[in-house]
Structure formats: C-alpha cells, structure tokens
C-alpha cells in the first residue's frame, strides 16, 4: 500500500510542471476576474460591480455585441455551409477541396490589425473598391462604414465564413451517398431529401457550428480595436475602456464584472456547441 501511494505520488509529479504553469497563467488570471467582479477596490465583497452592468452604455454595448455576433454567425454559417457543400461535392482528393480547406484554415485565423488594414484599403474612404464604385457607377460607400457596427459585421464575416467551412466539412463528409440513393429509389425528390433526410441529420451540426461562430465573434477584440478608436460600441471595447482608464476612474472591478459576463456568455454558448457536437457524431462524422 505505501508502495502504490509512492508510485502514484511520483506519477503525479510528472504532471506538476504543467499544473504549476497553468495555475499561474490560466487559473490565477481567471480567478482575478471572477473574484474581482465581486469585490470593491478595497477588497471587500460587494455586488456593486455586477449591479453596475445595468448601466445604459453597457447594456447597449451588450445588445450590439449580441446582434453583431448573431448576424455574422448566421451569415457566416449560411455562406460557409454553401461553400462547404460545394467543396464536398467535388473530388475528395482534388485540388479544389485541398485549396479551399487550406485557404480557409488560414483565413479563419486572419484578424486584427492586418484584416483592418485590408478592409480599409478596400472599402475605406480611399479604398480601391470605394474609388472604383464611385468612378464607374457613382455609388458612394459611406465614409464611416468601417467604424460602425455594419462595417464591423462585414469584416467579421470575412473570418466567420472560413471558420464555418472548417467546422462544418467533417459533418458534411459524414453524409452518405447511399442516403440520397435510398431517397431517390423510394421516389423522393431533391427537396424531400433535404427536408426529411439530410436536413434533420445535419441540423445539430449546423446549429452547433453557428454557436461556435457566435462565440468567435462575441470574443473577438483585435479587429474591432484596430478599426474603432473612438467610443466603445461593443463589449470587448468597453472592457478595453475600463482597462486602460482604470487608474483614473477606479473602474477596474466594473471591467472585471463585464469580463466575467463575457466569459459566462461564451461558456454557455460553447457548452451548447459541445452538446450539439456529441449529437452530431451519433449519425454523421
């Protein structure tokens, strides 16, 4: 008995460096946010920070962020699913499929300053699409397009579509040709196949992927930060404002409460995603 416990203790020692590192750089920061949300600047427990979340500008930012995340998740999911389907109907080892998955793998990671620059050079006030449209059709792209929510949505879709392709392709790969053939041999039309066979089977996967896209947009910071320097239309930028001005306004812990609220939203959405992923793997994938 003492021998086994010594062996077990020794075995646990092998995991110690990993646990020590993740404690310092993952668990402590998480606790700083969670605990900080419920204490005042003097370290005494309080609910004032959480109550502070009801302020108008925070609620507005929350609603805008939810709207932005939902819109870009749905657009990204629909377009991404179409692209994924287009790729799946091509030859499995063909050039199209390989290039599209490779390009999507890169573009899904694409964000922040570079993406902001790319869109400024395209539909910014001096962007080439803006200039071309104006010269050739007289259509004016709004000069402040990229600094508002609609512009952010346009930019976010750029990384949402590739992400959808990456997460949705495996589910589409799980759809068997035989199901289609079975439907056809029973006299079913294409519409009936999608409505009664493929649609319901792919439903958990598409819902789950949409949730993942939602969380992705909800948590995104760098792109918005690089584009929007004035004001804080979305929640991550509100956190930035409280973070950079904490000394002046003593708002550090309100910032932590907002941060905690963000974690809660993302965690709930990701739990839904994980649950739907398990449902998906029952039939496809």
């Amino acid at each position, binding site marked *: 008995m003492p021998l086994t416990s010594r062996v077990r203790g020794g*075995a*646990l020692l*092998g*995991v110690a*460096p*990993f646990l020590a590192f*993740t404690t310092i*750089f*993952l668990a*402590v920061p*998480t*606790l*700083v*946010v969670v605990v*900080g949300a419920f204490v005042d600047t003097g370290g005494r427990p309080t609910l004032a920070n959480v109550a502070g979340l009801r302020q108008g500008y925070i609620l507005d930012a929350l609603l805008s962020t939810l709207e932005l995340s939902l819109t870009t998740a749905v657009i990204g999911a629909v377009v991404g699913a*179409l*692209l994924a*389907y*287009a790729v799946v*109907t*091509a030859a499995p080892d063909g050039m*199209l499929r*390989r290039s599209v*998955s*490779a*390009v999507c*793998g*890169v*573009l899904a*990671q694409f*964000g*922040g*300053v*570079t993406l902001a*620059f*790319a*869109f400024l*050079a*395209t539909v910014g006030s*001096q962007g080439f*699409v803006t200039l071309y449209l104006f010269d050739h059709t007289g259509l004016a792209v709004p000069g402040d397009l990229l600094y508002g929510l609609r512009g952010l949505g346009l930019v976010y879709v*750029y990384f949402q579509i*590739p992400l959808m392709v990456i997460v949705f392709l495996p589910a589409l790969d799980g759809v068997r040709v035989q199901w289609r*053939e079975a439907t056809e041999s029973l006299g079913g039309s294409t519409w009936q196949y999608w409505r009664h066979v493929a649609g319901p089977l792919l439903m958990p996967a598409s819902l789950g992927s949409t949730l993942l896209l939602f*969380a992705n947009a909800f*948590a*995104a*910071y*760098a792109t918005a*930060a*690089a584009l929007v320097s004035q004001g804080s239309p979305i929640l*991550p930028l509100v956190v930035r404002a409280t*973070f*950079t001005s904490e000394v002046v306004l003593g708002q550090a812990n309100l*910032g932590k409460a907002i*941060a905690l609220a*963000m*974690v809660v939203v*993302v965690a709930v959405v*990701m739990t839904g995603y994980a649950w739907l992923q398990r449902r998906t793997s029952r039939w496809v994938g």
Partner: protein
Amino acid sequence: MAGLQRARVRRQATFRWVVVAVVGTFFALPLLGMLEFTTRAPGGGRTAAVWRTVADLGGLRTTYPELWAGLKASGALVVLTVLIMLVLLVPTMTWVRLRVPGLRRTIEFICLLPLTIPAIVLVVGLAPVYAWVTYLLGGSSAWLCFAYVVLVLPYCYRALDAGLSAIDVRTLGEAARSLGAGWGTVMVRVILPNVRTAVLSASFLAVALVLGEFTIASLLHRDNLQVGINQLGQRDAQVAVAVSFAALALAFVLLLVLSFAGGRRTRTLTPLATPPTQEPA
C-alpha cells in the same frame, strides 16, 4: 436513376463553381486591396518603392524603429512560445497516457479552457500576474511568451493529441523501458520521433498565432509585430500595410505547408499495426 445522377452531377458542378467564384471574390478583394494600396505612387500610377523599402531590412531598422522592435520581439516570442509549449505539453501528455490515464480528461479540460476565455478577458486577469513577472524577470516583451503559451494551448493540444492517439504510446513506452531506457530517452528518442508530424503542426499553429497576436501585447504595453504595425499605420500607412501583408503571406505559407503535409500523413509509423483509438483530427 443514372440519368438522375448525371443531371445532379451537372447541377452540382455549376453550383460549385458559382459558389466558389462568388465567395472567392469576397476573400480575394481585401487582399488585392492591400496589394493595390502598397503599389500606389504619390501622383497616381504604380510604383514598387514601398516594397523596396520593406525588402531593405537594414534601412527598415533605422527608419522605422517601432517596427524593428516589434519584429525582434515577435521573433523571440515565436521561439520561446514554441519551445515552452512543446516542453510543457509533449512530456505531460505522454506521461499522462503512460502513468496517470485518470488525469487525461482533466488535462484536456485545462488545455481547452482558453477557448472559453476571450483574449480581452485574459488580459484583465493577466495584468496583476504580469506586474509580478515584470517585478521578478523585468519588463521585456519576450515574457509575453507565457501568456502566448496559454493562448495556443487548445490548438496545440488538439494537434499533439491527434499525433499521440495515432501511436501506441503505452506499448512503445513499456518496450523502451523494459530494454532499459530512462524516461528522458523514452521521450526524446522513442515518443518524439513518432509524433514529429504532430509536433510540426502544433509548432506551425503556434507560430501563426503568435505572429498575429495583438490583444495582449497592446493592452499590456509590450512590443510585438502587430503592435509595431499598428503604430506604424499612423505614420506611414503604405509601409505598414506592406509589412502586414508580408507577415500574412508568411503565416499563409506556413499553414499551407502544414495543411498539405498533414494531408499526406501516412500511418506507416503506427507500431504493431494497432488501430488508433481516435482518428487524427
């Protein structure tokens, strides 16, 4: 039946090219926009002057010190992050499979946790931790590597997990041990060579993520490539766009190489022909 299928194949081909063309245009336009912007000449027309400036690294160093500082910091961060990530993950994940399989779910949970913590939230929590890092180790930008290891944890864990699942770690480990190998030998000469593709993918992913990281560096007032590019954007937009395009192209090539190398992965390394317990992702 055959007629139906032929018609479907034709319809799908048309649908395929329409979708790929439309979405491809949307993907291509901003990238073209960057190229177009960096080749604009002051009086109209085209010039390669901006790209000549960017290619001249020595000149870049003196003319754009903020960019050079960012480049240096990101170079150090890439190396440190990949090293710490590998030293932390490969032995731990191997050890857990060999000796404490009961902890596997816990390790997985910890590694995937950063997916639910937005970077902006992590910064808020990391600020006090980095006050200590600065106190103990100094304020160098290179110490951002600790935060970056946390950021890349989920992606690298998945890549390495796929690699380790494709080989029989336990049998390999026990065989090596029974022949007298120490744990170090098992790790470096037995496990590592068998998961080199996974190690490579994990490293490439880490490199791509570190090269693109902006949130943590900018809010903790450290230098990195993206922070440098962002500062430069206010002074010389064309050079800033050119450099960010070059950085993007580099990440692009890295990940392209990775995806094609990953696609060619063979199972010939699987020992004893045991089927993998899990499909490589």
